[in-house]
């Protein structure tokens, strides 16, 4: 039996992973992130120039880095849409209730006002909100429906992004554990949004993400006890393999501690 209606979050807070000062700079840029001060070519925007990243998590990166260009949609003022109205209309938008904007006016992603921007225009201090996994899947569901009139269940959309979500969590945890002891005293967590995009911490984050990605994708070998054969694998592959995932995560935790000590020593 097909689900006939678009879905809605049970609570507004289920939509967001973090908003305002709680947005973590160590979180990699993902689909559903809301940025301010981004000019979308050919799209009329209001003064705050809000946009939502629409590129899919699977295709927005080349290795550790973002693709040079990403797809974004305009975010702007819209009427207040109750959660029980999400299924029955407003199909051209993704409502963003309680998004903390200065005007206090309800906001929405306009799904038919899309543009292509340079990924270098997305500065971490300008990130206003990150959608949760559920919020991202709801955004995908409404976007697909707006463009194809097809309703794809959100749990399948989440499942298809599982690997990317997990990797983003791993990167965030890695950077928090490794960089916080080095930068934590200089830059208290709640002040990241006030930093200039040129602040050296952002270069440090980029370098650490690259380091982590190298570790994740590095070919490793092990000898199988039963057959004696050498097997080549990567931690990234293991993270996606249900039978090897836990060991990979434990190994990453050990690497993280080593890296933390290494960076402390080099201070």
């Amino acid at each position: 039996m097909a689900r006939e209606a678009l879905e809605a979050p049970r609570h507004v807070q289920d939509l967001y992973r973090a908003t305002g000062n709680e947005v973590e700079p160590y979180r990699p840029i993902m689909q559903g992130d809301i940025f301010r001060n981004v000019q979308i070519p050919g799209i009329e925007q209001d003064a705050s120039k809000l946009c939502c990243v629409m590129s899919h998590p699977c295709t927005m990166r080349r290795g550790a880095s973002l693709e040079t260009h990403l797809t974004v949609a305009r975010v702007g003022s819209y009427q207040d849409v109750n959660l029980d109205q999400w299924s029955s209309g407003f199909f051209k938008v993704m409502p963003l209730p309680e998004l903390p904007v200065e005007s206090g006016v309800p906001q929405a992603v306009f799904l038919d006002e899309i543009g292509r921007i340079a990924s270098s225009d997305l500065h971490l201090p300008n990130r206003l909100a990150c959608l949760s996994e559920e919020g991202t899947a709801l955004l995908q569901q409404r976007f697909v429906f707006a463009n194809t009139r097809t309703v794809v269940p959100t749990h399948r959309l989440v499942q298809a992004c599982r690997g990317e979500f997990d990797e983003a969590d791993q990167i965030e945890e890695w950077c928090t554990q490794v960089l916080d002891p080095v930068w934590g005293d200089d830059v208290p967590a709640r002040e990241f949004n006030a930093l200039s995009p040129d602040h050296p911490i952002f270069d440090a984050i980029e370098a650490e993400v690259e380091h982590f990605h190298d570790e994740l994708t590095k070919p490793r070998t092990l000898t199988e006890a039963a057959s004696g054969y050498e097997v080549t694998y990567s931690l990234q592959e293991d993270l996606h393999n249900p039978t090897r995932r836990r060991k990979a995560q434990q190994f990453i935790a050990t690497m993280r501690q080593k890296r933390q000590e290494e960076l402390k020593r080099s201070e």
Partner: protein
Amino acid sequence: MTARSLDEPTGADTSNDLLQDLIDPPTAAIELANRAGALRDEVGLLRDDVEETHRSALQLDRRTRAAEAAKKDPHDLLKELSDNYGMSWTSIGKALAVSIPAIRKWRRGGSISPDNRTALSRLVAFLEVLEIDLGVADPVGWLEMSLPEGSKTGLDLYGTSHATGLLEYAGGHISLGDLLRDVEDADQPSDEGWEVFEAPDGKPAVRLRE
């Protein structure tokens, strides 16, 4: 004509015996059915008792482990969840019904309410029971899997106070139907014929199942 009691002595009259035999089988069947019914009720009650006792034992096991875990520093509990069990902050947040920024604050040494501290130690205890008592090799991986033919994961159910039911299900003591009986929307088929598959670019994608 009245039915004869089973204990009543039989007469010598053959035609009368024949008549009685024609009358008695239904009576005997009714009595047998009644007796079987009573036994079944007793077995049912016994089964309920056994189920309740088992449920209480699982809860006690988990409470005991949670009390042990509660002695540890919350920071260490989070580390245990993350580094040993491989649980992401997203999953921890879902299980405890708290936001990711809240978990991040705890991880950075911020204060944690007594309720959340209890919830944290209960989560660690839950994973211990799954792994040690029930032999689930990767408890977090098991929790994050979609339940058969459904949109829900074990983690969704854990977050809605179905922890004991999940332990019973993991131990093979109840069926998926039993587990989902109390869960909202559980009666709605939610698989909808969609599936996730590996696209030619090696990345996962969604399609309608053929």
